[in-house]
C-alpha cells in the first residue's frame, strides 16, 4: 500500500482497512500529512459562506410556466376555432372572444384535463397544477411573456 492509498482510506469516510491504519501509524510522513490534511479540511469548513440567499422563485416559475402553458394551450385554441367554424354564422374573431374556451388564459387552458396530453406526461401537468396558483398569486404572466419564452427556447 502506497502512502497516498493509505491516506485516502484513512482520510475519507467508510470502512478503513487495518492495513491502512497500520501504515499511517507506523509512517511519520503519513501521520504528519494526515494531521495537516485534517487541518486543511477544518479551514475549508470554516470558510463556508453562511448566507443561503434564496433565489426569487417567481423568476424560476415564470421561466417554467409560460412555455408549458403556451405549448399546451395551442391545441385548445385550434379546437375552439374549429368548433366556431363548424357552428357557422359567427366570425372567428367574434367567437374567439365570446367562447368560454377562447376567453381562458393560456395557463387556465393548460390546467384543463387536456385529452391531447401525451401519454405519460402526467407529471408535467401535475407540476403545472402545482406551480400555477402560486405564480398567479405573485404576478400574472402575460401572453407576450409566454411568447418570448417560447422564442428563447
Amino acid at each position: 500500500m502506497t502512502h497516498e492509498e493509505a491516506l485516502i482510506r484513512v482520510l475519507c469516510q467508510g470502512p478503513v482497512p487495518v492495513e491502512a491504519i497500520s501504515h499511517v501509524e507506523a509512517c511519520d510522513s503519513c501521520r504528519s500529512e494526515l494531521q495537516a490534511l485534517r487541518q486543511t479540511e477544518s479551514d475549508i469548513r470554516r470558510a463556508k459562506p453562511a448566507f443561503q440567499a434564496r433565489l426569487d422563485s417567481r423568476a424560476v416559475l415564470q421561466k417554467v410556466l409560460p412555455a408549458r402553458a403556451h405549448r399546451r394551450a395551442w391545441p385548445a385554441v385550434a379546437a375552439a376555432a374549429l368548433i366556431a367554424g363548424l357552428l357557422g354564422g359567427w366570425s372567428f374573431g367574434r367567437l374567439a372572444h365570446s367562447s368560454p374556451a377562447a376567453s381562458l388564459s393560456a395557463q387556465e387552458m393548460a390546467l384543463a384535463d387536456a385529452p391531447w396530453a401525451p401519454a405519460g406526461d402526467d407529471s408535467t401537468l401535475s407540476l403545472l397544477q402545482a406551480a400555477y396558483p402560486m405564480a398567479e398569486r405573485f404576478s400574472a404572466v402575460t401572453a407576450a411573456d409566454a411568447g418570448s419564452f417560447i422564442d428563447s427556447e
Partner: protein
Amino acid sequence: MAEAPDEWLEQIKAGEPAAVQRLLDELSGPVRRYLEGMLHNPAQAEDLAQEALVRLLQHLGEFRQEASLRTYTFQIAHNLALNHLAAASTRREEYGSEEPLQAEDGHQGALEMVAAKEDQRRVRQALKLLAPQQRAVVILRAWEDMSFKEIARVMGLAEGTAKAHYFFALRNLRHHLEAKNDA
C-alpha cells in the same frame, strides 16, 4: 433540514403549490452557494442557480428517484458549472471577483472577526486555484456535507475516484495556503 425534498416529490406531483415553493426554498440557497464557490462570480452563480432550478422543474418527470432530489439538483448545477467554466476558458474570461462572500460572524470581537474573515478569504482564494473537479469535490464535501457516494453521483464518477480527487485537492490546497503564508 426538517424534511427531505424527496418526501415533497409526491406532494408536488399531487399539485400542492406549497410543496413547489418549499422545494425551491430548500434547494436554491445551497445550489447558489455551490455555484458561487465554483465560479467565484456571484452574478453568474445566481443566473446558473436559477437555470439549474428551471431545468429541475422542467425535467422532474424524468426523475427516477435513483438518487435524492438534492443530489439530482446538484448534478444539474455541477454540469452547468463545468460547461460554463469550459466556455469561460475558451473566452479567456477572468474569474475572481473580489466581492467577498458574507461570512459567518458569530459573536467574535472585531479583531478576531477581521482575522477570521481574512483566513476565509485566503482559503477561498486558494480554492480558485484548484482544478474544477477538485474544487467541486471539496465544496460538496466540506460545505454541503455530502457523502462520497453522493458526490460521486453528482460528478458522474466512481466513488473511489471522488475520494482520490478529495485527497489530492486537500493536498494541493494545503500547498497553496502554505505558499501564500510564505509569500
